[in-house]
């Protein structure tokens, strides 16, 4: 369809180009002598590091890429050969396996870290992960200790101050490593770029409120969100979302959407099964399912409830950002988010994809399901597999669940008891 319209496909293509260029810069970093920091997606305070001229590596994104490119399995096995249990996070194993293979992946060769910045926003596993990398590379590890958003509570002043204090220390460390002084003005410029990109990104997310939705907030969002995660603060990131916004606009005007006929609108909780991403998507597409909101697209930051990076309060807003990534939220906050999505985006159902790797996501999901089925009478589908380990994806079983689930939804909806479509 890309031919018929002007902007269709730009989101995907431009995203590919930008990531390609970024990985190219990384590949060159050793030669250009650019300092390299490893960092996580959740609580990604990359702007601060970029303000010191660091190039950033995101091990999670590498793991994700390996998953999509179907090489994760080998790296994971390699890590298990090194002694890692089959029961620990597949992302970590993928990354360790990658490192043990000379850091050469489908995206090229990655530079070694000069600094490891562990943000404790995503999960505890982050800490174990970078402890291992610190051992492996003998690189300096900075722990950015981000307190968890206690269930139901307001963000605590003490927590914010604590994170800010640590960011100041991080700035000192960076200055020491790069020989550059901390430059708040430069940081603010980067944060201004972030703010603009966030503004545009939120509009795209909200566009899913249209019927039919022009945009799949899960299966497409995972591509559209990449730049705001890995390139936030850079001008090209803002450019990207301008372009993407045009594509979405065009889709709205022509009533284009991810599925030719939108029959079900779902909210999706949990990460995708990367090694089987396409298959997984198809299983939903067959039923004309469009995901109108997802929690996974918030692991790297929650902007659709109003938060923006604030150039006038650089460190404070970085701290607030870091504390408000999805998996740093307690159960009640997560539940409220999903509840709001179901309402605002008029979803017919909640689909929970529970992944073995990620206890940070998974623990509590069964209660989420119980809450929505019992207390909100919202149809909820629960499927289990994994986000990185191809071994845990049982297609027949998952297909069976999805089919039965939408059969039932259709059965509920269609006048006349026929469970399927004629």
């Amino acid at each position, binding site marked *: 369809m890309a031919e018929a319209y002007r902007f269709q496909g730009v989101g995907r293509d431009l995203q590919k180009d930008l990531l390609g260029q970024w990985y190219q810069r990384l590949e060159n970093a050793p030669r250009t002598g650019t300092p390299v920091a490893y960092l996580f997606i959740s609580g990604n305070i990359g702007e601060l590091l970029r303000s010191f001229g660091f190039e950033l590596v995101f091990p999670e994104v590498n793991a994700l890429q390996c998953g999509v490119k179907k090489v994760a399995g080998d790296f994971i096995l390699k890590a298990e*050969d090194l*002694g890692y249990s089959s029961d620990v996070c597949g992302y970590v194993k993928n990354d360790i396996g990658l490192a043990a293979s000379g850091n050469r992946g489908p995206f090229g060769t990655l530079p070694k870290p000069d600094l490891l910045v562990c943000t404790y926003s995503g999960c505890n596993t982050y800490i174990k992960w970078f402890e291992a990398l610190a051992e492996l590379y003998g690189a300096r590890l900075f722990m950015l200790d981000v307190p968890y958003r206690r269930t139901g509570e307001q963000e605590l002043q003490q927590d914010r101050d604590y994170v800010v204090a640590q960011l100041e220390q991080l700035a000192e460390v960076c200055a020491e490593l790069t020989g550059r002084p901390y430059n708040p003005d430069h940081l603010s410029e980067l944060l201004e770029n972030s703010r603009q990109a966030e503004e545009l990104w939120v509009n795209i997310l909200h566009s899913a409120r249209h019927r039919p939705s022009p945009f799949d907030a899960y299966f497409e969002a995972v591509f559209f969100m990449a730049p705001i995660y890995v390139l936030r603060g850079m001008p090209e990131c803002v450019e990207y979302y301008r372009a993407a916004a045009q594509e979405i606009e065009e889709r709205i005007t022509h009533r284009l959407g991810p599925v030719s006929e939108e029959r079900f609108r779902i909210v999706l909780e949990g990460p995708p099964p990367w090694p089987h991403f396409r298959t997984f998507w198809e299983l939903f597409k067959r039923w004309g399912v469009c995901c109108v909101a997802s929690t996974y697209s918030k692991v790297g930051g929650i902007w659709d409830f109003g938060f923006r990076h604030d150039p006038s309060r650089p460190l404070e807003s970085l701290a607030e950002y870091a504390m408000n990534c999805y998996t740093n939220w307690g159960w009640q906050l997560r539940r409220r988010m999903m509840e709001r999505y179901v309402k605002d985006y008029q979803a017919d159902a909640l689909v929970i994809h529970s992944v073995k790797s990620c206890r940070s996501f998974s623990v509590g999901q069964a209660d989420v399901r119980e809450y929505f089925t019992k207390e909100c009478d919202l149809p909820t589908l629960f499927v289990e597999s994994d986000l990185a380990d191809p071994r845990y994806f049982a297609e027949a079983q998952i297909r069976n669940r999805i089919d039965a689930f939408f059969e039932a939804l259709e059965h509920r909806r269609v006048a006349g008891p026929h469970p399927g479509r004629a």
Partner: protein
Amino acid sequence: MRAVVGIDLGSRMTRGVLLDEHGRVQAQAARETGSRLEQAAQAVLEELCRCVGAKPEDVVYLASTGYGRYRVPFRQIQITEMTCHAMGALWLFPRTRTVLDIGAMNSRAIRIAENGRVVAFRMNDRCASGAGRFLERVAKALEVSLPEVGELSLRSQNPQPISSICAVLAESEVINHVTAGASVEDILRGAHNSIAERLVALVRQVSPQPEITLTGGVTKNSGMVQALEERLKTKLNVSPQSEWAGALGAALLARTRCQRLQSTAPEARNRTLASSVADPLSA
């Protein structure tokens, strides 16, 4: 003569090996274990003595191993299969560094040091998807005798993949293949492959090092050996004797132990190895 004996009470076979004072193998004996373990052990011991024309009291030290190791009343010591198979395998193939023992019920991967010390090991419990009984069931389902399965599988033209990892469900899958008209050879090969997959996964967990020696009844199965070699990308040591590895190892360890005890102070001699205080099985 002064002899030492090792007895391996396996779930199916009981095997015994007798060494003379110079550590030379003088006799081997085996018989079905059956349900009366003590008797099986007794019979094997007598058999061994008969072979070398010795009296039971000539046996100065006896070590038992295998799952019935605690059921040998006249043992001086019991030693686990792991330790014994390691020793036995090393005796059979002195450059062994990894042992893969595939029994009917459990499979074990063992990494050992030059001197036979067990460095790391894993065994499958809980799930039978990677042990010999799997093949027995498949053989039964296909109405071929166990000794044939290996050879047959090697004649396979296009192996039938077995999708289920479960030994039990795989069995019904096999039956389906049969009725669907797949050849016995292809089905067998499929079964061998799927077990091999799981065994390789087990071996990986001990970070194997060459040479790898295969022990246990499955060594009789050439198809299994090849399936494993393909996946481990290395030649495996297989000896017709390898089913004796357990008993052999027990005998060798019995000998070292007995020598040690004589060299150490007498009061130390009547010390027992802690584990021989209790018989967990009768508990």
